[in-house]
């Protein structure tokens, strides 16, 4: 584990240095691309939902270290979970799971949460 530096928790540093689930997930059936209009961070989240569960979750993020860490951690939080379990994830839950974020970086968790909500909103379960 890296020494905590730059005011970040070891969890943030780990997810920034070794982001999980980076990619595009070609067979995704739910996705969202959200932008922080002020700072220009872009988060693209892609999900493969099977039988009401998030089977796969992948992201691509152009943004600061906190945005990358929050994106990575979100995919870990939701993978394998049933949809009702992830519907109420809040930015505060993402921040807590990251071991906290500096105040000026809380928007990174908010962007991750927004991506999840958008992806779920656009998801329509296929019938048959």
């Amino acid at each position, binding site marked *: 584990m890296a020494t905590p*530096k730059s005011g970040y928790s070891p969890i943030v540093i780990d997810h*920034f240095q070794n982001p999980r689930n*980076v990619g595009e997930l070609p067979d995704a059936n739910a996705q969202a691309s959200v932008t922080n209009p002020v700072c220009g961070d872009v988060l693209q989240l892609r999900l493969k939902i099977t039988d009401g569960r998030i089977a796969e979750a992948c992201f691509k993020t*152009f943004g600061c270290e906190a945005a990358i860490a929050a994106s990575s951690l979100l995919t870990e939080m939701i993978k394998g979970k049933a949809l009702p379990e992830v519907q109420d994830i809040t930015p505060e839950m993402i921040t807590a799971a990251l071991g906290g974020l500096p105040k000026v970086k809380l928007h990174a968790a908010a962007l991750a949460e927004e991506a999840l909500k958008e992806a779920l909103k656009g998801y329509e379960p296929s019938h048959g």
Partner: protein
Amino acid sequence: MGEALIYLDHNATTPLHPAVWDAMRPFLTEAFGNPSSLHSEGLQARDAVEEARARVARLLGAGPEEVVFTSSGTEADNLAILGSVLARQHRGRHIITSQIEHPAVLGACGALEAQGFRITRLPVGSEGLIDPDDLGRVLTDDTLLVTLMHANNELGTIQPIHACAALAHARGALVHTDAVQSLGKVPTLVDELGIDLLSLSGHKIHGPKGIGALYLRRGLALAPIITGGPQERGLRGGTEHVAAIVGLGVAAERVGAHMVQEMTQVAALRDRLERGIVATIPDVLINGVAAARLPTTTNVSFKGVDGQSLVVALDLRGVAASTGSACSSGSLEPSHVLLAMGLPDEWLRGAVRFSLGAGNTSAEVDTVLRLLPPMVTRLRQHASGSMRPATLTL
């Protein structure tokens, strides 16, 4: 992990030189006298302050009576700008500066603007340089002061101060330059620059923080901005920070004696770093590369990378650099310098500044050149290209 610190952020601050510390220490302990006192302890402190003043003056090619100690480069900028304008405000209402000044200068000019003075902020070209012709066009008989930085802190670009000073003087305006970044790196002789006021700071030249100085040409009247006792000829009230003044004096003497040799070495390291980056990493831009620059500084834009995330990744591997544009409070705060240069958006966000010092080695530069390419590749992959879901490692 565990590498020794590679410090490439000397434009932010520099480590205190051991000789500076040795000279300062007695004045923080046994030699505690107040320079204004008449007893031996006071006289000892007074002598130390005046010796330091002479040392700073020598580095500038000035007389000791032309140097006023301040608490910082920022205070020196404020004293130069507010002090000269307020002392001469019956003669005009116009001040000229540039868009790429340090916040200390922009702040002082903004304060004057709020008092009804007219401020012209000169643009810069794509290399970050002001054009003296632009200055010539905006100078009027109403112009009190032209304040332009000698070298830019973000780019290291060196402004044509001498040419600008000649134009300004021809219209009767005073000329101030903020030489905080250039001092000790390139010559800063006041007569060669042709200026009336010059700001400098201790901690950029391996001196202590909390000390700066203002050169003001003989006979020039300033209004004090910190009033109080008669210290610094009434231009800066407050008991002198003797230890810091002594430290600044020793630091100034040291950089003056070693400038040519040290800066030749540093220039070679900086060029090695730039060549290595350009050779190994695609889509990079050296900002201000065609301009005259400080030998210490390079500002590199990595396209498709968030500069702040690269600075943090470097920090985690023991390399200290800095970024121009930073994301804070959910807003991107782009560098006003790079914006003024007209740097396109795709390059703006990925700008990172490396500023070297005499203590850096070619082995350190090579370490950075080994670390950078995979970091940049990884950060670019987060955002584009087609990748399989995978756990990536540096």
